[in-house]
């Protein structure tokens, strides 16, 4: 079984960031359409913009084009292969609304229509699997956000690259990655993390589904405390699953306490729980969580070969 993930995610980001960025204007409203594995790059990078800028970002993963997409909105269409079934319909609707369109892709229909209409195009290398291209997608999105008003995102990314490489070197062939691989191999994994780390639980789930052909589910804190926790503590079927709780210190003391309290409460029940700690700034936490998922799946694909 080929792992389909790349050890070089930080280097891919670094390589892409070396491209010069021309500042275009200050955007205030961005709608980002992202499909399949591109979802992960979009969510991880957007988490920085969400927290640190006044730009409003909305993520859409289907073909709907809300009424508020008007000439004042910037629309980003992001798909590694550029062949998603919705692309043409979204493109033509958005174009008819007069919004500015930016595309991130390696080719396919998306590249074709973007080049034909002279839209803003960020090309990333071809002939990779969508999971292998995540670092390039992240770098391209950082460049794009920087050019439309999310100033400081590029510097923020450059500043965390050494720590991302260090984390990758530490984790990639580690006993810890091996241990986690063995843990998720035995039961159905359910991955939980905070909403700001949405990209992380999506990455874990996608990789488990696509590479290991294993069912996996996911959820988010603090929402977990308001409903899901009830069934985890009362339903005997909880034994079918392993909970991976990805925990990190956030910008909210309350959120940190919610994690700690929930883990303490859950530990009183007969549940199979693995708590994973991740540290760093918001974008750093997100990308480290993705690197960890990639390392674990890489080990798991070795087991299943």
């Amino acid at each position, binding site marked *: 079984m080929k792992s389909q993930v790349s050890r070089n995610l930080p280097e891919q980001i670094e390589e892409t960031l070396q491209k010069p960025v021309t500042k275009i204007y200050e955007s205030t409203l961005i709608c980002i359409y992202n499909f399949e594995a591109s979802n992960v790059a979009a969510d991880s990078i957007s988490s920085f913009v969400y927290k640190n800028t*006044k*730009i409003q970002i909305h993520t859409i993963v289907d073909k709907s084009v809300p009424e508020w997409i008007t000439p004042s909105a910037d629309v980003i269409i992001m798909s590694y292969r550029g062949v998603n079934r919705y692309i043409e319909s979204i493109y033509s609707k958005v174009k008819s609304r007069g919004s500015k369109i930016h595309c991130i892709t390696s080719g396919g229909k998306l590249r074709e229509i973007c080049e034909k209409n002279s839209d803003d195009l960020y090309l990333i290398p071809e002939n990779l699997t969508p999971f292998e291209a995540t670092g390039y997608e992240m770098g391209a999105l950082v460049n794009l956000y920087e050019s439309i008003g999310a100033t400081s995102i590029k510097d923020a990314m450059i500043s965390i690259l050494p720590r991302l490489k260090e984390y990758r070197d530490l984790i990639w062939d580690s006993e810890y990655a091996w241990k986690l691989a063995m843990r998720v191999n035995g039961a159905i994994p359910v991955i939980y993390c905070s909403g*700001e780390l949405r990209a992380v639980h999506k990455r874990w789930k996608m990789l488990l589904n696509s590479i290991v052909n*294993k069912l996996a589910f996911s959820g988010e804190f*603090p929402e977990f405390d308001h409903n899901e*926790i009830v*069934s985890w503590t009362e339903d005997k079927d909880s034994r*079918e699953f392993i909970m991976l709780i990805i925990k990190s210190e956030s910008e909210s003391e309350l*959120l940190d306490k919610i994690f700690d309290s929930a883990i303490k409460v859950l530990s009183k029940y007969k549940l199979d729980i693995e708590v994973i700690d991740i540290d760093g700034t918001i974008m750093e936490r997100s990308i480290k969580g993705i690197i960890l998922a990639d390392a674990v799946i890489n080990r798991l694909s070795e087991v299943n070969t």
Partner: protein
Amino acid sequence: MTEQTQARIRLHNFIEDIERSIDTPIDLKGMEVKSIMIGAMGGSAISSNIVVSCCADCAKIPISIIRSPVIPGWVGPDTLTVISTYSGNTDETLEMYKRAKAVKSPIIVITSGGKVEGMAESDGYPILKIPTGYQPRYSSGYMIGYLAAIIAASGYPAFSNNLKSCLDSLRSYRNYMEVQGSLAYLLADKYKDCVPVICTESKFKSIALRWKSQFNENSKTICFDSALSELDDFEKAPWANYKGKKLTLILIAGEDDMADDSLLKRAANNLEKMGFPFDLIAVGGNTREERLFRAWILGDYVTVYMAEHYGIDPEITTVITELKKRIRGEIRVRIIQSASRRRDGQIGA
């Protein structure tokens, strides 16, 4: 099935609760709303999801639901913030209130009371009151009705009008769900002792969330949600490989999503080819609102009937109460510790 629970009485009043709240006059004092942020958790947030889903085609401003104490950087004086918390004491929502106030965003509060009511009174923000005595998730009729009124006051009355025009039809549907042998009874019987996985298109995401949370809380059943696009892109092989018996895949959609070239039909055909069993619930109705709200009502009744079958009270969620106490207790501990360390000179002046 055992005797009728209090929860079932609350469900019955869902339509009437919408009617009681949807025409509430809202004075925005001339504010030109550029965007709306709804800060809510749990049942309050899910009630917001169905409203936002219905407004996608009629509101010319973005409406966002935030489920985190940390609000986005774009919230400011042009953003109308709606703080929706049934108890008025939800920690995350109270923090959202404080952060929205700090950036001078105008606020409207939907609540039955609690701390947030006192804060809003003191700050002079409008309060839309929900009667006390409900479990938060059964007060969704009020939350939906009030949100419809707020969005209408912001200049977008289409959702409110569309919802009002299908309330009679929804009432009939609700009455049918209460008849022995209805679809809700059949599904409650079918889904007992399984782990449901609710899969929908994005426009039905609110329904997946509602069904999931109602399975979790009403019938104390583990349940997961998934997106049809993910099922199509990533999950077909895992489902084909799944040899267990517990997980039950349930696709929920509107009848209008059943066209031959639709994503739903394609996903269903693929699953059939693989020989994997699944349920497809196609909900009828003349409008998006009618289909979504029928699906909402159906899920509520299914999960309450399941609870009644198990002989458990759908309203009781002991662990949530315990967790809330623990969170508040720990926060107090940390504040006391910080204060004592400050006294001891361990923290800079």
